[in-house]
């Protein structure tokens, strides 16, 4: 089914008003038919919202320690207690620490005599939301005891809270990185495609060269060059910049190709003949006509950024310890023993996978919705 007919069927199946629908509305209608992409969009919106309001969603501060629970496994939320009694308010059981007499390992079991009810939207320790707004409400908290839904790490820090604070760093690096990539890619790809000739040649060569150096070693070399004395914020922007400096080539190629093919289109020639300025032609006529493509490409580039940050931090040359990101958290799971004894430390990895899948599905859905030449729901 070609795009034209599929848009037509959309129009046929809904109200007669559709004839006047804007292109944006049509794209949205096509996108909505992609069930998985829609679900992914919601998953991402929820995750970004949680990351944005980390202080509210995380029960504890990222570096708050619970010395009674070192390497403690995740607690289970329960409604029915050990006596078989139902409680309307969910609760968790406290830990009972045993030292295994053979291996000298800490082993935690549920202590059914300690029942900690969970309270929602309750007041707790004061915090500054986004570092500015004073607040004290928490999504989940206990009035006595503790709640560790993802378990704790080697210092007894709550993994659930750390994953949420980590999301703030990891997810925002993906977005900021892509915005930088977007700017670089459109600027360089646009210049190459619009001017052509020698400029085009130079940009093309640069893209070729950057793409011939294996990405991860290149990232490693660049981030090893970040001065160790930099502040966490400096390293954060340094890493973001590195990811974009390496990653803009793909987008630039797409933009260049589009510019090359659009340059000879009738509407561009017409605009030029009327005497529109070069800037007006580029920003008013050419860019909007393939914006959906570039946004799609950018969406598909976000997971690469997130994976890049995770990989670098995991190797210890990305973000460093006081900063909490998913890659930094995964560093704890690097050693083999940790994985066997404390598998819950791999949860941040699960989050990475979830986000990457969601972005890929979202990008696929957007591509199908935006690409007028695609077979709707056909080959993919």
């Amino acid at each position, binding site marked *: 089914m070609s795009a034209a007919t599929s848009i037509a069927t959309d129009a046929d199946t809904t109200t007669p008003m559709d004839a006047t629908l804007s292109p944006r509305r049509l794209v949205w209608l096509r996108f909505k038919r992609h069930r998985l992409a829609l679900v992914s969009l919601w998953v991402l919106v929820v995750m970004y919202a949680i990351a944005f309001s980390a202080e509210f969603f995380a029960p504890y501060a990222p570096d708050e320690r619970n010395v009674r629970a070192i390497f403690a496994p995740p607690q289970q939320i329960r409604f029915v207690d050990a006596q078989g009694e139902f409680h309307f308010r969910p609760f968790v059981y406290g830990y009972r620490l045993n030292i295994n007499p053979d291996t000298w390992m800490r082993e935690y079991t549920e202590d059914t005599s300690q029942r900690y009810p969970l309270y929602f939207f309750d007041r707790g320790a004061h915090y500054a939301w986004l570092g500015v707004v004073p607040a004290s409400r928490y999504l989940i908290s206990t009035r006595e005891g503790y709640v560790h839904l993802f378990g704790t790490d080697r210092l007894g820090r709550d993994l659930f809270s750390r994953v949420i604070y980590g999301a703030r760093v990891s997810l925002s690096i993906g977005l900021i990185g892509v915005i930088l990539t977007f700017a670089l890619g459109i600027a360089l790809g646009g210049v190459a495609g619009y001017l052509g000739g020698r400029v085009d040649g130079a940009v093309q*060569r*640069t893209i*070729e*060269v950057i*793409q*011939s*150096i*294996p*990405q*991860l*070693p*290149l990232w*490693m*070399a*660049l981030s*090893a*060059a970040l*001065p160790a004395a930099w502040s966490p914020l400096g390293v954060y922007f340094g890493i973001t910049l590195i990811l974009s400096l390496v990653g803009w080539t793909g987008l630039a190629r797409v933009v260049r190709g589009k510019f090359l093919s659009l340059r000879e289109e009738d509407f561009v020639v017409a605009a030029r003949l009327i005497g529109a300025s070069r800037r007006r032609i580029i920003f008013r006529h050419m860019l909007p006509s393939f914006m959906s493509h570039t946004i799609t490409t950018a969406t598909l580039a976000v*997971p690469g950024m997130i*994976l890049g940050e*995770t*990989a670098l931090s*995991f*190797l210890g*040359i990305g973000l460093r310890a006081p900063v909490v990101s998913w890659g930094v958290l*995964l560093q704890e*799971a*690097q050693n*083999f023993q940790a*994985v*066997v004894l404390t*598998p819950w430390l*791999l949860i941040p*990895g699960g989050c*990475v*996978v979830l986000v*990457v*899948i969601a972005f*890929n*599905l979202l990008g696929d859905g957007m591509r199908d919705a935006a690409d007028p030449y695609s077979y709707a729901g*056909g*080959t*993919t």
Partner: protein
Amino acid sequence: MLNYVRRRVLAMIPTLALISVIVFALVQLPPGDIVSATLDRLQAQGVEVSDTQIEALRAQYHLDDPMPVQYLRWIGNFLTGDLGYSIAYEQPVNTLIWDRMGYTLLITFSSLLFTWIVALPIGIYSAVRQYSLGDYFFTVVGLIGVAVPNFLLAILAMYAGFSWFGISVGGLFSPEYIDAPWSWARVGDLIAHLWIPTIVLGAAGTAATMRVMRANLLDELKKPYVVTARAKGVRPVKLILKYPVRIAINPFISTIGWLLPTLISGEAIVAIVLNLPTTGPLLLQSLLSQDMYLAGSFLMLLSLMTVIGMLISDLLLAWADPRIRYE
């Protein structure tokens, strides 16, 4: 064809020259240099170093020459096969690097083979039985395969190997074979260890390649000649394998071009997690200790491998498809 080969090989030269400049700049980028790094190390050990010794060291490595001179000396030596001297390991780079490059090449190549052997039949199956249960299954597997970062997969492989098979996954040899001379038993041991990094590394590429194969074959299967052949009663197996698959397989040649850089990248991090004696761990070490000759040689050789891989893939494509030769 010969003309095309000549043009393509000549086009490599400026690319490689630019890469070498970038690599040199990258290695010089960290603040300080190898002598100051060595000094820090010596002073941490309590060794006193006199100013004259520092001067001698700086002179020995020509650190006070202007950058372009240093670059030309480095690349000149590189071209004659002298890769320089690793200060951290106190050995010529040549003795450190080639074993590791060999294993990197071996793992990369076996992953490439794995990718093809697995992705090709699955791609064909998914296309021929489109929207079947198996197709959906492989779609989901592929989706996850692309999304799981390969270092996470490496950790999971270690976990699985330990908890299911009770073996410690990691390294390329059993302890007794690490320093043993080459023998058939050692080769066997290598192969027994090779499959885990191969699968871990090949997973993402396999997932992507089978999607490409599926999409290409689906396009091909809709064409009139296939319908005609089917109408005339050609046996299904022959119908699929003899014509459409041979056309759809074209991207498998071009995969070398884009798969190789990903594999080499992935190999670096997987090797660090699985503790393989390949380039990855040593490259990280050398970058951290500013061992510039070692780091530079690794970066340069890995890029060279990629560029040559792309060349091979382009040449194979030109050989398979005459239209490319005469563009």
